C-alpha cells in the first residue's frame, strides 16, 4: 500500500519543529503530539525540548520507529529533507511549503527534484503546497492548521485538491455533528495524487465513501480509471464550469473545456457528480451510510404536501425516477389511511400520525422502489417513526434518507437517533433530495458504467 506510511504511521517526525507559537513548526508539533505514538521534533539549530520532547538534529538521527515526516521548512530546503527521509527509511512526507510548481519554472524545477528523490528513495510525498491531512480516528493531525482536533471521526474520506476546501468540508462535517474518516488536501500532488489517495482509502476499513474535490489533474484519465476500479463509492465535485477559454478559431478545441470533460468522464466511469461542497458532503454521507441502492427508483413518503412536492420536483431534475407504487402497496396504504390525501408516489399523509411508520415500511417493501425518501416536520407527540426506519435499513436493506425540520433544540436528540441507525438526515427538503440524487446517480452509473448511458439516458 503506497500511502500507508502517510496515513497509518508508527511514528512522526516534525522537521523544522519550533518553540515559537504561531510558527508552522510549532502548530504542526502541537497537532502531531496528540498522536498515540512517538513524535520527534527535528531541527538542527534548536536545542533542548519542545512540548517535552527532545530536539533531534536530523531525521537520520532518530532512534525509534518513524515513517511520517511533516516538513515545516522553506521550499529550498525541502529537497534535502526528502533526501534525508529516504536515507532514514521514512516512507511518507508532507510538504507544507509553497513556492513549487504553482510558482513558476524555478518552483517547478524544485518540485521535479523532490519527485525524483522521492521516487528513488520510496517516499510517498503529499504536497507540496498543502495544509496536510487528518485521520481523526487515530488522532493523526498532520497539519499546521489549528483547532483541527474538533473534527470527529466519521466514515467519509475527503480528498480535495485544495487544502482550503478540504478544511471547509471537514469543519462543515463537524458543524453537522458528523465527521470524517480522513481529510486530505492534495496540493501540488508530487507523488501522492488522487489515484494514490483513493486507492489507500478504498482499503481503509473506516472509510465507507470517498468524496473528491477536483480542479484539474495532469492525468484525468488515470483518475477516472482509478475511480472505476475501486469498490468504495465515490462522489465528485468538479469545479470550473465557467473558466473555459474564449472562443478560439477552431470550435472543437474551444468547446472542449476540462469541466465538460470531467463531467462526461465521471459519468462514463460511474462517478456521481455534484455542484457544491454542501452537496458533496450530503451525497457522500448518503453513500457512506446507506446500503447500496439497487436502482434509481425513489419512493417518497411525506407528511406535508409542500415539501413533498419540492422533493419530487428536485428528484426528477436530478434524474431520479418516481415509479408508480404497485396496486398492492396502494391498497395497504389506503387501508392504513382511509381517505388519504395522495396514495401514489409521493405518498402524502397530510400530517404526521401514529401509522406514519407503517406507510414508510409499505413503500420500502414495494418492489418498484429502490430508495425511500421520507419527509416529516417534527411533532413532539409523535416523534419519528424510528422503529419502522430501522426495519427498512436492517431487514429490507433499502436505502432511506430522511428530511425534517423543527427547532434545533428539540430535534437534536431525535435526529441523532436516526443517524445512529445509518439514516442520513437533512434539515431541508432540497438537501434530502440532493443526497438521494447522489444515490440515484450511483445506482444508474454503476455495475455496468460503460453501458449505463444506453439504458437510462436515451429516453429523456
Amino acid at each position, binding site marked *: 500500500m503506497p500511502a500507508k506510511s502517510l496515513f497509518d504511521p508508527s511514528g512522526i517526525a516534525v522537521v523544522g519543529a519550533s518553540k515559537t507559537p504561531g510558527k508552522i513548526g510549532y502548530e504542526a508539533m502541537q497537532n502531531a503530539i496528540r498522536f498515540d505514538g512517538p513524535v520527534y521534533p527535528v531541527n538542527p539549530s534548536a536545542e533542548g525540548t519542545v512540548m517535552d520532547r527532545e530536539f533531534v538534529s536530523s531525521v537520520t538521527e532518530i532512534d525509534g520507529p518513524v515513517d511520517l515526516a511533516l516538513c515545516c521548512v522553506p521550499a529550498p530546503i525541502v529537497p534535502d529533507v526528502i533526501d534525508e527521509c529516504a536515507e532514514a527509511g521514512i516512507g511518507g512526507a508532507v510538504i507544507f511549503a509553497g513556492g513549487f510548481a504553482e510558482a513558476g519554472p524555478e518552483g517547478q524545477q524544485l518540485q521535479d527534484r523532490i519527485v525524483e528523490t522521492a521516487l528513488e528513495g520510496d517516499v510517498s510525498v503529499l504536497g507540496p503546497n498543502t495544509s496536510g491531512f487528518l485521520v481523526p480516528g487515530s488522532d493523526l493531525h498532520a497539519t499546521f492548521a489549528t483547532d483541527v482536533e474538533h473534527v470527529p471521526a466519521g466514515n467519509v474520506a475527503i480528498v480535495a485538491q485544495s487544502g482550503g476546501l478540504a478544511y471547509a468540508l471537514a469543519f462543515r462535517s463537524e458543524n453537522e455533528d458528523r465527521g470524517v474518516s480522513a481529510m486530505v488536501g492534495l496540493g501540488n500532488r508530487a507523488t501522492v495524487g488522487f489515484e494514490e489517495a483513493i486507492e489507500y482509502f478504498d482499503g481503509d476499513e473506516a472509510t465507507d465513501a470517498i468524496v473528491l474535490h477536483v480542479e*484539474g*489533474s*495532469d*492525468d*484525468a*484519465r488515470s483518475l*477516472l480509471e482509478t475511480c472505476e476500479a475501486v469498490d468504495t463509492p465515490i462522489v465528485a465535485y468538479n469545479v470550473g464550469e465557467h473558466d473555459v477559454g474564449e*472562443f478560439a*478559431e*477552431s*470550435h*472543437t*478545441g474551444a*468547446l*472542449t473545456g*476540462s469541466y*465538460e*470533460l470531467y*463531467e*462526461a*468522464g465521471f459519468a*462514463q466511469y460511474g462517478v456521481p457528480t455534484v455542484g457544491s461542497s454542501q452537496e458533496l458532503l450530503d451525497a457522500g454521507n448518503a453513500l457512506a451510510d446507506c446500503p447500496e441502492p439497487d436502482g434509481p427508483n425513489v419512493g417518497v413518503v411525506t407528511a406535508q404536501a409542500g415539501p413533498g412536492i419540492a422533493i419530487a420536483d428536485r428528484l426528477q431534475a436530478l434524474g431520479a425516477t418516481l415509479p408508480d407504487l404497485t396496486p398492492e402497496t396502494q391498497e395497504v396504504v389506503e387501508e392504513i389511511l382511509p381517505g388519504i390525501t395522495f396514495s401514489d408516489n409521493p405518498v402524502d399523509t397530510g400530517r404526521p400520525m401514529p401509522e406514519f411508520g407503517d406507510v414508510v415500511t409499505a413503500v420500502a417493501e414495494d418492489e418498484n422502489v429502490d430508495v425511500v425518501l421520507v419527509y416529516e416536520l417534527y411533532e413532539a407527540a409523535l416523534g419519528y417513526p424510528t422503529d419502522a426506519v430501522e426495519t427498512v435499513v436492517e431487514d429490507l436493506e433499502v436505502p432511506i434518507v430522511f428530511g425534517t425540520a423543527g427547532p434545533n433544540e428539540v430535534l437534536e436528540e431525535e435526529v441523532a437517533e436516526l443517524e445512529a441507525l445509518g439514516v442520513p438526515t437533512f434539515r431541508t427538503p432540497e438537501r434530502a433530495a440532493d443526497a438521494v440524487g447522489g444515490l440515484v446517480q450511483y445506482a444508474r452509473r454503476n455495475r455496468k458504467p*460503460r*453501458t449505463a*448511458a*444506453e439504458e437510462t*439516458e*436515451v*429516453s*429523456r
Partner: protein
Amino acid sequence: MSGDPIEAAREAGRGALTEADAKALLAEHGLASPENELVDSAEAAVEAAESIGSPVVVKVASPAVQHKSEWGDGAGVAVGLTDADAVRDAAETILETAADQNIETSVLVEAGVDIDAGLEVIVGGTRDPSFGPTVLVGLGGVAVEVLQDTSHRLAPISTAEALAMIDDLESSPLFDGYRGSPAVDREAVAEAIVTVGDLLAERDEIAELEVNPLLAQSDGAVALDALVTLESADE
C-alpha cells in the same frame, strides 16, 4: 509516395491535412463526403464540374488556408454553381487571389448538397493532455457559437454512447424533424462521432479533428467540411 495522408502531411512539414485528405481519411473509416475532385486550373475545374454534375461547390485547397470562407474576402468558397462560366470564374478568382498572396493552392470541386434538406451538426474530437482522446457533438452553425449546446465523451465510445450524446443535446428534438423537415438519421450521426473517436484513439498524430458541418440527412450523414490538425512532429 506515402499512401497515408497523415504521414504525407508530416513529410511535407504541414500541421494539418488538406480538406481533400481529411475527407479521404474519414471516408476510409466509413464517413462519406460529397463526391469531389482536386484540380489545378480553371479548365480542369470546369471538366470536374461536368463529370460531377450540377450544382457544385468550388473551394480553395491550400495547406496555407484553414478558414476557407473567410479567405480572400469570400473568394475561398463558392456554392451552388450550376454552369461552366460560374465554375471557371470561381476557380480563377481562387487561383488569382492565391497568386496575389504568393501561396500555392489547388481548387477543390465538390458536388453541391442541399443544406436545407438536413441538419447541420458539428462533430469533433481533441487529444486533451489530461484526458487523451475526446469527442464532442453539437448542433452546427449559430447554435454551437451562441448556445454552446454540446455533449462530450472520452473516446473511444460505442454507438450507444454516441446516441446518448445526441440525446444529451438541448437541441435533440430538432433531430426528430421540425416544421415539416424530416427526421434525421441519428444512427448515422452517432456513427460519425464513433468514427472521429476511433480515429483519435488509433492515430496518436491527430491533435484535433473537426467535421463542421456534418450534414445529417434522413438517410445518412455527409461531411461537408473536415479539418484534421496534427500534433507537432517533435512531440
